[in-house]
């Protein structure tokens, strides 16, 4: 096996040729580590690494670096997310050194939801906050690469020890303007992204077309693309994502399948939920298989949002269990 960039478990699984599985763990609005510990123990074993989100939806939560360390201590490998929203390049690099010193080996570079997002208006958030966006996500990937491969800070000063991160970026293949998205993916890889996690895919045909373009650009041989799967939990959730989540479109058939599952429960609310959740897990498994069949795809990034308990069954049913021990 060629020498590792970071030696992270995720990197090893990708290098081994097995389809990689990442999951997502959203830290809570709490000073207690308990929820992170609990979620980490549910996800451990179901994935090769789990993303620890960085104040997702622009709401204050346990910082991604601290939550990543808590997860790591539980035996779950973290992918620490780092947004450009809240830190300038000085703070970002300081946090990267700190994260590396704590044993964190994967980092996902993202712009981050704008501070006005406030959990899509469900929470107060901090819409009046001043944002930073000193660098963008592509520049951030470049900073990580420069620190790792050249031992230099962005400004040029040397580091005594380089942080050895496996560098990740996000990709929204279905985002506007769609014909530019494969090129933006290429830029992310040119900047230094070792792996890519995509926005949730429901429209497999669209993803196939975008992947074919990515293949044309020679991207998949230079990075590991993990297709995003957001496990649907209800017809309402699918409709919401189709209508309101940028870059996500949900084919009618999937929404209809969920509605059918819901209707089969009659007036029984509990059953309505159970049947939709069962159908949602089935849909997730099908999507995983379809995504993994697309040329150039090296794994899946499965998000069972606030529903970590669903992960194990899904991974098993998709034939991705147990995870390789490398």
């Amino acid at each position: 096996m060629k020498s590792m960039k970071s030696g992270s478990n995720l990197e090893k699984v990708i290098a081994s040729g097995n389809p990689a599985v990442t999951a997502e763990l959203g830290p809570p609005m709490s000073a207690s580590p308990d929820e992170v510990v609990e979620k980490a123990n549910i996800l451990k074993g179901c994935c090769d690494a789990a993303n620890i989100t960085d104040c997702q939806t622009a709401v204050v939560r346990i910082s991604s670096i601290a939550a990543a360390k808590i997860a790591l201590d539980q035996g779950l490998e973290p992918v620490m997310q780092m947004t450009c929203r809240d830190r300038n390049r000085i703070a970002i690099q300081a946090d990267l050194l700190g994260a590396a010193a704590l044993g964190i080996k994967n980092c996902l570079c993202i712009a981050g939801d704008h501070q006005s997002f406030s959990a899509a208006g469900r929470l107060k958030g901090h819409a009046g906050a001043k944002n930073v966006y000193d660098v963008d996500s592509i520049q951030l990937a470049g900073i990580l690469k420069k620190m790792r491969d050249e031992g230099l800070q962005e400004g040029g000063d040397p580091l005594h020890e380089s942080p050895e991160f496996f560098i990740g970026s996000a990709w929204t293949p279905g985002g506007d303007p769609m014909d530019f998205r494969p090129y933006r993916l290429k830029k992310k890889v040119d900047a230094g992204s070792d792996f890519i996690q995509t926005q949730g895919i429901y429209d497999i045909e669209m993803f196939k077309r975008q992947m074919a373009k990515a293949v044309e650009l020679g991207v998949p041989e230079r990075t590991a693309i993990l297709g995003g799967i957001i496990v649907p939990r209800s017809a309402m959730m699918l409709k919401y994502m189709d209508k309101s989540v940028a870059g996500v479109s949900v084919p009618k058939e999937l929404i209809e399948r969920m509605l059918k599952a819901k209707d089969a429960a009659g007036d029984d609310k509990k059953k309505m939920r159970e049947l939709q959740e069962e159908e949602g897990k089935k849909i997730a498994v099908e999507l995983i298989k379809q995504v993994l069949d697309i040329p150039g795809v090296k794994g899946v990034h499965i998000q069972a949002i606030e529903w970590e308990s669903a992960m194990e069954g899904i991974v098993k049913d998709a034939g991705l269990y147990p995870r390789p021990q490398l």
Partner: protein
Amino acid sequence: MIVGSQKPFDEIWEMVKDFKKVLVFGCNTCVAICHSGGAKEAEELASKIRMKASQEGAGMQVDDLAVQRHCEPEYFEPEMEKVRGYDLVLSTACGVGVNFLSERIGETPVYPGLNTTFFGAVTEPGVFVEMCAGCGDCVLHMTGGICPIARCSKTLMNGPCGGTDEGKCEVSSEIDCAWFLIVERMKKLGTMEKLLEIKPPRNWAPGTHGGPRRMVAEHIKDMEEGEAQ
């Protein structure tokens, strides 16, 4: 132009209510064009304050005046004696005007009647849109003439984030996604390849992040000094 909008009247009243002799001082350049601080608006605001003062039983003299520009002394110097005769100048110029007058007026306080908002253009009658952020390091030749600093909510330099939806920004469906516009424009110009280069982290120092800015037009300075000799 510099775009500003009048502060809410309640806020203005809180500022002025304890003064006896107030001048509402308008500026007839940018803020007149955006209908918020020119001679007409200064006159209307003075009248509104007089009415409120009368309702509240506050004995207050409120006058109005406007000059062509608040950012060059030659326009307001001739009126300075008049302006100094008040307890308060409520300026409806942009923030530049308020600062500049404050430094020259002596003991009289100068308060802002406007919130100065941005550098913008009139996209349709009554609609003003931000188009430049005065960042000090223009990149418009690389982005099809559409500014990612002023017009992208995240000041991104390398293309659209995942929040673009049908050409609109994730912050609001009222905001065009700058990067959507840039990509479409570059396609039309046949210069898409420029967008494939990675733009490195910016030097923000020429913007407000390098401290307050100053520009010296050497040729003008030299010419003036030459004439003085």
